[in-house]
């Protein structure tokens, strides 16, 4: 499973079964505009990523170093890139 597939599955999990996404999740999908992730869903996602990728991927630490507007501007590709960089 690629990092993107895992991240996409976690995003869908956070959004919940009741809410289908219109489009497929790609590296270019933005969390705010395309996926319409709420900030509280981002908190939940951060935790799921940490659990899924382990302590070596300090996703919460990475996020907490960012301002809210930077977080809002993030794309799925930014997160995938960060995870891959931590694991190499």
């Amino acid at each position, binding site marked *: 499973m690629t990092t993107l597939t895992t991240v996409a599955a976690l995003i869908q999990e956070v*959004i919940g079964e009741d*809410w289908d*996404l*219109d489009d497929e999740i790609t590296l270019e999908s933005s969390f*705010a*505009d395309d996926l*319409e*992730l*709420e*900030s*509280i869903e*981002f*908190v*939940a996602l951060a*935790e799921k990523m940490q659990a899924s990728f382990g302590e070596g991927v300090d996703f*919460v630490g990475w*996020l*907490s*170093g960012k*301002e*809210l*507007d930077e*977080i*809002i501007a993030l794309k799925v590709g930014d997160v995938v890139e960060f995870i891959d960089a931590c694991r190499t």
Partner: protein
Amino acid sequence: MPHLTANDQELHHQLLGDATSDATPCVFAHGLLVDNLSSWYFGAAPIVAASRLAVCYDLRGHGLSSHAADGYDVGTGARDLIALLDSLGLQQVDLAGQSWGALICLRVALEHPERVRRLVLCEAPLPPSSLTEMASVINSDPQELLNMLPESLREAFSGGKRRALKAASRLKRLLTESSLIADLKAEGDIDDELLAALSQETLLLYGDDSSCRPVADRLLELVPHASLKTLPGGHYLAAERASDVGALIKEFLDG
């Protein structure tokens, strides 16, 4: 999600920073209705967490905590917070609250002085009716309430799709399927004598343009160990001026 049952509620919380730090942990309480722990979690909390454990939690009926039909009064909120501290094994903490969360923190500090070292009241509305936003909540006009939000929070209701629908349905549920409005209406002021008996060092944070800015002057006069910092901004200060609020809280707690 870390949830724990406190005061018969499932409360969602998140920990930031070093849990083994010797410094007093700081617990953050958010405001009502449109707020949840993310305004602290993505704002001031990580700044404060550089020198101590920071705990953010969702109030009952908010964020990822379970829905509650009642108990939105300050007294019940304070009991929820004490139960959360007990469950986490935190004997003494610093408390930082925004708006209604500040009233909850203040109540805990007054009723359980031994549990609270220092106190940060960000935009505490006293009496609650001092807040213009409160009037639109009580009049049940969600649109008016939304119009008063700063841009960063209004984002949650924008887009017209999933996020907006979800946020609007949650707001509607709180306004129409819980005792929240009745609880707000019933919440009274705190007597001057009680405020004068507050023993903790207290930092007051208020926005220059906030409708409850005059409350700061009353608290400054009555609370024995209070200091005031004002920032450009309105009522939703913790979200609107997150970095400044974080730096001020950190300086206050570290000092």
